[in-house]
């Protein structure tokens, strides 16, 4: 039965696709470097050393190196490109890492004077550390697939002896295989009980593919990582929006309760507002009096004879608006001035002045001071 998608997610990511190449194809050397050298200096040292060691130019080699920051030694390895067929190299395109099989155990973190023996059907490889994290020697011997156990044991003893003094010999009975790792920044290999953990920086240095192809691959990886981050950012944003939706629903319920409260109070409040309006009207009727004829009388007292009032309308308690006309437009200004000089007038304004058939029409707005007018008695 197939596992559910949830089970697949819980199972964690699959191990990285790693192409492990036969050790017999490579030659390797430990090259001394200055302790504390930068990675760029190490790359340069490796290039120079391989150029010197190899009968072929660097461009005709597949090569890599193993170095840890602070080490005074780098293990460089290379293979002549023509030793690999086009079909073999075509398969590397789908692999995340391509390296010699022995390179998989370089991150084993062994004690000094340790030798690891890697057994393969077509040969034996020993990796020897005298001190530090970088091996001092890698040796390989080719064995016939039909070799007997005695022949294999003899070859193993000779290789261990040739590698140097070893306090510990670790046998890896099976070829290294990539394992699911705890983080994306490391790759874990298992060879029998042996575990080797290599950081992503070390894995890039171990990769033997063409360096220009590697650079293109790195660019593609950076692009893919960017796409992944954008996609994940969008998914996280959607999750945040979902939380906001929940909050909006909750806030909507709260708002609904408040709207219901407004509705419930509406009748009471409109009654209070009506009471307020009523109180204001009663107060006004009780204490204030509109005196329109008194206002007209005050204005008419200053009116030149030629000006004729057509319509008068009150606006509030103390303002009267009078539409008037005159055959002598020059009198309008004087009329306004006369009104402005009247003690009871607060403000005088002339609007909408029009002249038609020698008759000037205008609107006069006069605002009186609140205490200026006295009610007429007769």
């Amino acid at each position, binding site marked *: 039965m197939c596992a559910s998608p949830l089970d*697949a*997610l*819980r*199972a*964690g*990511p*699959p191990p990285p696709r790693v192409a492990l190449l036969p050790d017999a194809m490579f030659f390797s050397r430990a090259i001394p470097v200055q302790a504390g050298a930068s990675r760029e200096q190490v790359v340069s040292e490796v290039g120079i050393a391989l150029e010197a060691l190899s009968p072929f130019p660097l461009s005709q080699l597949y090569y890599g190196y193993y170095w840890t920051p602070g080490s005074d030694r780098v293990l460089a390895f290379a293979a002549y490109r023509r030793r690999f067929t086009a079909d073999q190299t075509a398969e590397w395109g789908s692999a995340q890492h391509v390296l010699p099989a022995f390179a998989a155990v370089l991150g084993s973190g062994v004690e000094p004077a340790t030798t690891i023996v890697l057994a393969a059907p077509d040969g034996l490889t020993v990796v020897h550390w005298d001190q530090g994290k970088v091996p001092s020697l890698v040796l390989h011997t080719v064995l016939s697939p039909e070799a007997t156990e005695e022949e294999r044991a003899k070859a193993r003893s000779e290789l261990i002896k040739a590698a140097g003094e070893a306090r510990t010999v670790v046998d890896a009975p099976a070829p290294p295989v990539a394992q699911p790792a705890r983080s*994306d920044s490391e790759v874990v290999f298992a060879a029998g009980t042996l575990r080797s953990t290599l950081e992503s920086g070390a894995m890039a240095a171990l990769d033997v593919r063409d360096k220009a192809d590697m650079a293109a691959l790195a660019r593609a990886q950076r692009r*893919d*990582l960017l*796409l*992944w981050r*954008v*996609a*994940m950012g*969008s*998914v996280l*944003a*959607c999750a945040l929006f979902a939380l*906001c*939706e929940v909050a*909006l629903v909750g806030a909507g319920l709260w*708002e609904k309760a*408040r*709207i219901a*409260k*407004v509705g419930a*109070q*509406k009748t*009471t*409040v409109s*009654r*209070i507002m*009506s*009471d*307020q*309006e*009523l*109180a204001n*009207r*009663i*107060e*006004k*009727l*009780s*204490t204030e*009096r*509109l005196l*329109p*004829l008194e206002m007209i009388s005050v204005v008419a007292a200053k009116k030149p004879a030629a000006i*004729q*009032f*057509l*319509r*008068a*309308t*009150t606006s509030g308690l103390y303002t009267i608006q009078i539409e008037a006309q005159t055959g002598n437009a020059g009198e309008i200004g004087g009329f306004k001035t006369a009104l402005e000089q009247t003690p009871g007038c607060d403000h005088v304004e002339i609007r909408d002045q029009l002249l038609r058939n020698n008759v000037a029409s205008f609107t006069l707005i006069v605002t009186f001071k609140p205490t200026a007018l006295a*009610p*007429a*008695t007769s």
Partner: protein
Amino acid sequence: MIRTLKAFFLARYFREKLLLTGFAVLAAAIWLSSLSGRTRRFVREVHVTTSSLTDQALWISNRSKIEASAQAAAAQLDAARTLDATRLLAEVAAIANDAGLKNPTTSESQDQSNGQFSVHTLRLNVTRADWDSIKAFYIGLQKRSPYIGIEQFSLQVDRANAALLNASLRISSVEIAAH
């Protein structure tokens, strides 16, 4: 789980990665647009409701003060002399008749009441009246103040005869209900 998804994503072809990313971005953009619109509307609604509740709370907190002010305003009047709508109409008609105004017309009375106090308002129109009649009517109304009040006044020269006037008044009276 995230690393599994990441491994799955990175193992896709480039066009598939592009498509998945495009879908995710599009979904987030559409959702954001919809959510921001609804959030803006909701915030506006909350502001309106908050404002309404604040106003209502203010009115409710001032309730006793408003009632007291209405009582205080009404206390300035003699309840027996206040006029209901019928008495207002009768009183205005009598004053108009005394002033010699012919054919005054009134609108239907508009009433505003809280049960205890009422304000009755009517509009009165007078056409083709002379100045003296209008003045007499006006003085008659003013004598009944504050039980009858003029709230608005408009006077216009008659178009056919400049010696005559047309007047329009909004007249109000207060009624205090007898206990």
